[in-house]
Every structure is written in structure tokens, then in C-alpha cells.
């Protein structure tokens, strides 16, 4: 029977040499103390960032035109959320990885009807609004075609949208109840009531911010602030933190793929990057089994620095 071949990148020689005293508990305690001290020092010197959260109230007051344009896009179905696809709706196929449409297959399990979620339902929550109530009733009773006509007419006129004296001004004709709905939504946002209405659509107690976050993300306001903080995708933003703080340097490779073709321009960029990173992560897990990759340590001989005392002792 032939002896099993020794594979230097897979097998390890048996250690027949000496042992030295080793205090494992002491080592652990020293490490803990050193890390704790270093943590305290860094926290005392640098602190941590805390850029305040945006609100729909702040958005509508700071950038009323962007807010109004976004609200209109929810109503006319052109917003990012309205056209997203799964898991929010079936407006589009969503991202594809070759023949795989993973999100679509799973389905819209977090259903969001943009017009209802961001405009109609919040307006319905307002009490004692006879004019608005009548307009909302008119909206409910209308067919999808009629609604689309009203919204289209308002959208055309909205090219000349203005905010005058805190009021949204759009000179639209044949826009049905849309004019009042948009105007009232704008006022609701400016008071802060829309923030609350977006969160409490699912009940009193909620920690689910899906709706207000989707709404904010549909506009340009949040993205503009993110751009100033170097947090956007084409700024390698995934690695970055607000201010001058170190961020997530370990995401360098994940972010890198978003900078190169075809991921940087493809509508399927996200799923392509995920697929690449899943493969690379699998590769990292399976290094011990990958010839070539597992040979690099022996070939580069960095180990001779680590074990130099051992190798000197052999001579």
C-alpha cells in the first residue's frame, strides 16, 4: 500500500518540537483591557456622528417644489416606488440575472399602491375637511381612466408649479379633485401631520418606516443631501460615513463593482453586483479547496517572517 502523498498546501506536518508556557486567560484579559482603553480613548477624542433624520415636514418646507413634484409622481405613477416592481407592486419585472427574475418570483409581499399610500390615505385621515372629503369621494367614485385624465392635466400644468405665500399654486384645468388634494397634501406635509400619517397607516404601534422612507427616496431632497456627504453610489458612498468619520472600509470590494461597466450603467446593476459578491464570498469560504489560491501563501513566503524564529532554529 503506497503512503498517502503529502500535499504541502493541504496537509500540515506533525509538530514534534517543544512547547512553551502560555497563559491563555491572562492573554484574554490583557486583550480586553487594551481594547477597552483604546475604545474609550477613541470615543473621548472623536465621538461619533449623528446627522439628524430628515422628515417629510422638513422636506416640504426646505424644498417645497421637490416635495410637490414627488407627491405628483406618486399620484401619476411615475415615481420610483410606483414603477418599482416586487416587493412593492407588479409595475415592472424588476432586476434580472439572465433568465432569473428573483424579486418577481417572490412577489409583492410588501404591497404599496403609491397613489393611495402617499396621497389618498393620508388625506383621508384628516378630520373635519368638508371640501377635501367631497373631493376624495369624487376621486373614489371615478374610474381609473377619469383619474388618469385629471392627473395628466394637472401634471402638464405642474410644469409651472409655484409656491406662493406657503400655498402650492398650479393653474390646471380639468384636473378634477387633484388640485385640492395636492394643495392639502402640501399643507399636511408642512405641519408634520403627513410624517405621522405615513407611519401610522398600519396602526398605533409601529416601528415600520417603509412608507415615509420610500416617499423620501422618491424625491431628490434626500439624495442631494447624501451627495454633499459623499454617500451616493458613484462616490463609493457605501464605504463612507457622514462627516470625516471612518466608514465601512470592509465594503470596498462590494462598492467597487458599482463603479465599473456594466454594473455602473445597467438597470440590473444591483443583482449583478450581488451575484459577483456571492461568488467571491463562496470562493473565500472555499479557499482551502481551491488549487492555486491555496498555494499563494507557500509561494509568497510571507510565512517565513511569521515563523522566522522556528526556521532559524532548524539551521
Amino acid at each position, binding site marked *: 500500500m503506497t503512503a498517502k502523498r503529502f500535499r504541502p498546501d493541504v496537509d500540515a506536518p506533525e509538530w514534534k518540537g517543544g*512547547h*512553551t508556557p502560555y497563559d491563555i486567560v491572562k492573554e484574554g484579559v490583557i486583550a480586553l483591557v487594551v481594547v477597552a482603553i483604546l475604545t*474609550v480613548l477613541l470615543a473621548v477624542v472623536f465621538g461619533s456622528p449623528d446627522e439628524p433624520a430628515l422628515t417629510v415636514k422638513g422636506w416640504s418646507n426646505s424644498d417645497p417644489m421637490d416635495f410637490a413634484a414627488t407627491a405628483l409622481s406618486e399620484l401619476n405613477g411615475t415615481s420610483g416606488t410606483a414603477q418599482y416592481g416586487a416587493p412593492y407592486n407588479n409595475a415592472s419585472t424588476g432586476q434580472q440575472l439572465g433568465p432569473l427574475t*428573483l424579486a418577481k418570483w417572490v412577489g409583492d*409581499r410588501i404591497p404599496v399602491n403609491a397613489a393611495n399610500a402617499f396621497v389618498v390615505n393620508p388625506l383621508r385621515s384628516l378630520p373635519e375637511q368638508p371640501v377635501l372629503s367631497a373631493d376624495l369621494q369624487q376621486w373614489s367614485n371615478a374610474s381609473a381612466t377619469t383619474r388618469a385624465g385629471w392627473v395628466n392635466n394637472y401634471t402638464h400644468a405642474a410644469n409651472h408649479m409655484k409656491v406662493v405665500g406657503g400655498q402650492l399654486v398650479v393653474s390646471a384645468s380639468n384636473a378634477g379633485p387633484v388640485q385640492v388634494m395636492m394643495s392639502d397634501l402640501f399643507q399636511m406635509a408642512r405641519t408634520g401631520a403627513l410624517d405621522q400619517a405615513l407611519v401610522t397607516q398600519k396602526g398605533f404601534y409601529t416601528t415600520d418606516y417603509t412608507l415615509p422612507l420610500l416617499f423620501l427616496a422618491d424625491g431628490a431632497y434626500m439624495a442631494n443631501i447624501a451627495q454633499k456627504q459623499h454617500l451616493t453610489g458613484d462616490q463609493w458612498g457605501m464605504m463612507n460615513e457622514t462627516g470625516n468619520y471612518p466608514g465601512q472600509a470592509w465594503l470596498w470590494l462590494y462598492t467597487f463593482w458599482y463603479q465599473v461597466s456594466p454594473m455602473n450603467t445597467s438597470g440590473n446593476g444591483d443583482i449583478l453586483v450581488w451575484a459577483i459578491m456571492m461568488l467571491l464570498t463562496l470562493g473565500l469560504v472555499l479557499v482551502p479547496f481551491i488549487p492555486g489560491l491555496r498555494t499563494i501563501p507557500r509561494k509568497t513566503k510571507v510565512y517565513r517572517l511569521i*515563523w522566522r524564529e522556528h526556521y532559524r532554529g532548524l539551521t
Partner: protein
Amino acid sequence: MSTTEVDRQWTTRLRKRVTAKLPPEKLLPDTQPSYVSSWIYVFGVTTMAALAVVIATGCLLALRGPQWWHGSSVGHFVNSLHLWSVEIFFFAMVIHLWGKYFMAAWRGGRALTWMTGVVTFVTSIAAAFTGYLCQTNFDSQWISTQAKDGINATGAGAFWNVLNMGQMLMWHIVLLPIAAVLLTAFHVLLVRVKGVVPPFDDTATVAS
């Protein structure tokens, strides 16, 4: 009760199996092979120490809830401790990974040790990510709305909603820390069972 009956008990069988695989002197050794003589070896224990500080500071934050640190300077300081201990954690873990790669530490039946290490690394990234989502500030808003596209594209977003702060908070403070600690414990126990990987048999250095 006969001896055979006691021997057949689950408790007895488990104890014998565990103590055979990992007797006390292997679990808590008082010597180590003399080739363990480099500073590169401290980064594993440093990573674990950092994980302990991360968990401890996380527990402090949990005492007063996720909003505490926005309105309290003490809370903000505790948040800073948590942030910097996470930075140290990743700092040490990546250097540990570099060292173990160049030592080819998977050799001699230690492939599972390497694999559990990488899985722990990936789990830590998920834990850090959910942590960023729980900050309840602008950073959380931006990160969640950006990350949703990648996660939604895989189909996982239908079940793992990064915009649902409550869900992300519970993954961050319950599920992922448990996973990280269990994986770390398994990883470390594997090192204790298999021992630290010996040097390459660089016979060219041996005098003829």
C-alpha cells in the same frame, strides 16, 4: 442502576465525547507550541476582545432604548464607544484573516476552522449593516433606502425589509449577535481541538 445503563445515557455519552475531543488541558491549555512566536497571533484574541466590548456597549445602549443617544450626552458617548469598538473589531479581524491566509491556516484538517472564520466575518458584516440601520438618524435613512435595491433584487427584500426599523433592530440586537457569538465560539473551539497550525515544512532551510 447498572453501569451499562448509566453508560447509555445521553448525558454520559455526550460528556465522554466532549471530554475525549476537548479535555480540560486542551480547552484551557497552559503551554503552546514554540513556533507560536509572532505578534500576528494576537489578532484573533483582539478580535474577540473587541466583540466583547461591542456587546457590552450594545447592552448599555439597550438600557435606554434606540432613541436615547440623540438627546443625551451620556448616551452619545456610549454610542461612540459602540462605534469605535466595532471599528477595532473589523480592524483586528481583517488583520487576523490576512495572517491566517499567509499561514495557510487551513492545513492539517483545519479547513472547517477557516470556513467558520469566513462565515463569522460575513455574519459580522450583516450585524454591522443592521446596526447602521438602527441609528435612527439620516445615515440610517440613506443606508436603508439605498440597500433596499440590492436586497430586493435578490428576492430576500420581501421577507427582510431594511426599511422596517423594528425588524432590523431585532435582527441586530438578538439574532445576529447570537449567531456571531455561536460562530466565534465554534471557531475558537475548533482551534483548541486541532491546535495552532504548524509551520510549513520548509526543508530547504534544514542543513544537509
